[in-house]
């Protein structure tokens, strides 16, 4: 997923803020690092306006204990992307400790350490920050050693394996201290102004495929996900939403036999604010999860349905989008409107010139992409324990959640309970997949509401069917691209995307502004497009939409890279050569060239019945090119045999994690491209479980080769960028194989479970 600039602004600043360095002598050395507060958005980090308390700073990045422990307090969410390990690698590198000397602990909500996990930023945006924090901790330990020797010459000291070594310049005698023996003294030292960072050429751990810290617990059942939380005396809840999107509760149903309680639940927004008058679900509380789910499923509820379901019906939405494509007011995303000109008026102003340059377009194509569910393996689940006074007033609150946004969990609970945020503890568990779904606060809000009502510890777990039917979906989109070639070069390009506004639906978008989530991947393309315009037309439909792995790029890369291939074919050019000829970005060119070479051994000697396709896309600062080899074992099917994948993600922290994320991104994209589709009839979701929302199985798995570009650029994202190029690469191969250009995803709608059972 990606996030608006204002949300990530705080995480972007590379400069160090020395006010953030704090020390807690009693426990050893603790080094925290505050992102500069300037530019940090009030929308997200209201708490950053207040100076952190000592207690909050106990959750600092780096802790060197007097007991020999070296701890990284992890402020993000580990959802399989390896962030927990990636950050620990950076810490261990600069702190000069060995990989097996570091322990990673999950931090609570903290203004310095916590961050929202999204935008493929978990490791990449903290690279500089954590290197500085760890280097500062190392230098404080060395400064502590200086006070013991009286020799302030830094060159007399070295650090290795959690030990400071001092070589007396006169006697040449060597003294060593373990970090634990220096930790307390280090806490009263000052960080030197010129912090020494390790020369990247001498990295021991950054760039190495060290084993991930979370993996052992994930092979023996001991890893704790949100759904695994267990508290003494807790009760179990399941949810039943109004099956029609937009419907609300007409009357509270009576408690069924065997239930502990039935609790009406108000809807809430992404950051947990409840919407007045919006009771859209009831929770059923019982003595175990299965009973709660069964009772909820069988519960007869009277719902008040919305007056019209046109805004939540796939057929009606398609018709509406087609109307807007033909005659809607567009907003111009590229070229950027000059100051004082609105995106709408700039679009109107530019359109005639683009239309003139297009003349009769060489290709005029409309691409259609469906709503998609996240379908994380772990359904959403949240456990809440509220302590009440004898008068029944909530006094403190503890929450366990598989969340991508712990700070928002705290905010959600504060709003519902009246408990001060300082009295709300959030435990971020492992996430059984996040994919952008678990940034949302709907399930957290419901669990808190149930705990307030029943006044007992409660774990809420959604049935899979509720998870599918009440997701915040990847938006449906209609994209029209017109382009005209002149002598094999793109001379004019008009791009128009009609889709819902993810930010707009959350109230995060000023009126008349372009939703960055809708247009990412369609602007700043690596191709010279001559006279061009990129437009977005907001689609005012009512399907809840959200951040789905790679977000807008999952839509726009399909339209852009399919179109590029259509143009190559029209020009009679090789798809690689056409891209090289029109490409303006050297980094993209290098990645494409590497993919060209990597795939050339098999690409030019494919057996009969096979065809290849290529696509390239940038997202989250990372370039990925993929070349696929497909065949068609029978009509109406596709077998993906082989994929060559080249990635440029800047400095590599862990090449094994990069490979894993490329492999995973490809599978995620294949699920979507081949079969993924949510459809709605009069507000009701048609796909409710994996039996009609097909996911790949192991026998569908192609052979994937991943190659990583050597780079000294700052690290960029890896969690999402593997997704966008895959669907267009498949469509491009399919066109080559069959002569049929697939412009509507998925390739095979209405797939079953994909299981032989």
């Amino acid at each position, binding site marked *: 997923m990606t996030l608006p600039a204002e949300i990530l602004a705080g995480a972007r600043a590379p400069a160090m803020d020395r006010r953030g360095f704090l020390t807690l002598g009693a426990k050893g050395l603790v080094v925290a690092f505050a992102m500069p507060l300037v530019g940090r958005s009030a929308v997200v980090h209201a708490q950053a306006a207040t100076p952190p308390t000592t207690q909050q700073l106990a959750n600092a990045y780096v802790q060197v204990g007097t007991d020999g422990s070296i701890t990284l307090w992890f402020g993000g969410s580990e*959802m*399989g*992307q*390896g962030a927990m390990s990636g950050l620990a690698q950076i810490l261990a590198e600069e702190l000069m400790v060995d990989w097996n000397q570091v322990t990673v602990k999950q931090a609570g909500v903290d203004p310095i350490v916590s961050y929202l996990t999204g935008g493929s930023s978990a490791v990449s945006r903290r690279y500089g920050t954590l290197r500085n924090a760890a280097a500062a901790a190392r230098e404080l330990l060395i400064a502590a050693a200086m006070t013991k020797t009286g020799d302030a010459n830094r060159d007399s000291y070295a650090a290795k394996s959690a030990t400071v070594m001092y070589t007396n310049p006169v006697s040449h005698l060597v003294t060593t201290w373990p970090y634990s023996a220096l930790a307390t003294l280090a806490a009263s030292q000052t960080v030197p102004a010129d912090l020494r960072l390790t020369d990247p050429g001498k990295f021991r751990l950054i760039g190495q495929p060290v*084993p*991930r810290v979370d*993996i*052992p*617990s*994930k*092979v*023996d*059942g*001991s*890893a*704790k*996900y949100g*759904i*695994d939380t*267990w508290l003494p005396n807790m009760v179990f809840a399941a949810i039943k939403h109004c099956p029609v999107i937009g419907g609300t509760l007409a009357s509270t149903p009576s408690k069924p036999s065997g239930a502990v309680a039935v609790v009406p639940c108000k809807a809430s927004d992404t950051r947990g604010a409840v919407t007045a008058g919006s009771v859209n679900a009831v929770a059923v509380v019982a003595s*175990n*999860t*299965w*009973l709660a*789910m069964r009772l909820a499923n069988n519960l007869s509820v009277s719902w008040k349905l919305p007056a019209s379901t046109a805004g939540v019906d796939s057929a009606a939405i398609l018709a509406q989008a087609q109307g807007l494509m033909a005659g809607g007011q567009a907003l111009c995303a590229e070229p950027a409107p000059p100051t004082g000109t609105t995106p709408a008026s700039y679009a109107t102003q530019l359109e005639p010139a683009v239309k003139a340059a297009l003349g009769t377009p060489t290709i005029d194509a409309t691409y259609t992409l469906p709503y998609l569910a996240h379908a*994380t*393996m*772990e*359904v959403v689940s949240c456990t809440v324990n509220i302590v009440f006074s004898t008068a029944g007033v909530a006094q403190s609150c503890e929450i366990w959640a598989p969340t991508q946004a712990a700070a928002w969990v705290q905010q959600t609970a504060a709003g519902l309970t009246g408990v001060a945020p300082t009295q709300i503890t959030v435990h971020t568990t*492992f*996430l*059984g*997949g*996040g*994919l952008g779904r678990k940034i949302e606060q709907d399930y957290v809000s419901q669990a808190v509401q149930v705990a307030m009502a029943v006044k007992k510890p409660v774990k809420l777990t959604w*049935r*899979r069917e509720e998870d599918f039917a009440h997701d915040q979906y990847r938006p449906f989109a209609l994209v029209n691209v017109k382009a005209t070639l002149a002598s094999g070069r793109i001379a004019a390009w008009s791009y128009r995307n009609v889709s819902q506004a993810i930010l707009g639906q959350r109230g995060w978008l000023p009126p008349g502004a372009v939703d960055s989530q809708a247009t990412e991947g369609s602007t700043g393309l690596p191709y010279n497009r001559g006279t061009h315009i990129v437009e977005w037309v907001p689609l005012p439909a009512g399907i809840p939409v959200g951040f789905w792995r790679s977000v807008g790029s999952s839509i726009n890369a399909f339209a852009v890279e399919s179109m590029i291939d259509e143009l190559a074919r029209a020009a009679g050019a090789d798809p690689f050569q056409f891209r090289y000829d029109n490409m303006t970005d050297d980094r993209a060119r290098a990645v494409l060239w590497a993919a060209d070479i990597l795939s050339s051994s098999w690409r030019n000697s494919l057996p009969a019945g096979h065809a290849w396709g290529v696509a390239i896309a940038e997202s989250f600062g990372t370039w990925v090119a993929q070349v696929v080899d497909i065949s068609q074992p029978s009509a109406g099917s596709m077998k993906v045999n082989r994929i060559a994948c080249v990635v440029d993600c800047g400095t590599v922290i862990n090449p*094994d994690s990069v490979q*894993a994320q490329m*492999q*995973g991104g*490809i*599978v*995620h994209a294949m699920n979507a491209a081949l079969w993924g589709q949510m459809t709605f009839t009069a507000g009701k979701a048609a796909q409710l*479980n*994996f*039996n009609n929302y097909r*996911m*790949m*199985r*192991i*026998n*569908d*798995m192609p*052979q*994937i080769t991943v190659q990583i570009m050597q780079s000294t650029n700052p690290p960029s994202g890896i969690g999402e960028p593997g997704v966008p190029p895959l669907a267009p690469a498949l469509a491009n191969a399919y066109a080559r194989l069959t002569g049929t250009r697939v412009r509507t995803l998925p390739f095979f709608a209405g797939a079953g*479970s994909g*299981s*032989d*059972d």
Partner: protein
Amino acid sequence: MYSLNVNGVSHSVNVDGSTPLLWVLRDVLGLTGTKYGCGIEVCGACTVLVNGQPEKSCDMDTSEAAGKTIVTIEGLSANRSHPAQQAWIAHQVPQCGYCQSGMIMACAGAMQAGHHGNEILSEMNNICVCGTYARIKDAVQGL
């Protein structure tokens, strides 16, 4: 009251006989390594061994499981020493890890039935949304 033999320990559980084994394991016995994924025997996250056979516990009645030998991920080995667990670590298979209990139990069941390498793969059709299949393919090669 049903008697369940789980990981070599006998438990008396006081539940309705139609309660799926999955939820008895998770909510009654506290063995949360076995996961809920779909509830309809499609994804395989809930796979356990029942009398040595991989079974999807989300749709197995407790009354049917009673008296049989049940092994969950927690009971597969001490100290992650089962060859499948070792291979999973060596190949750094898990990402989010949520499906991996079921994957490993499916693999262990296929091994117990005498399968090796690619034969094991043909017995595994669980869903992994993270897409760890490439590494699972590599991991089973030595098994």
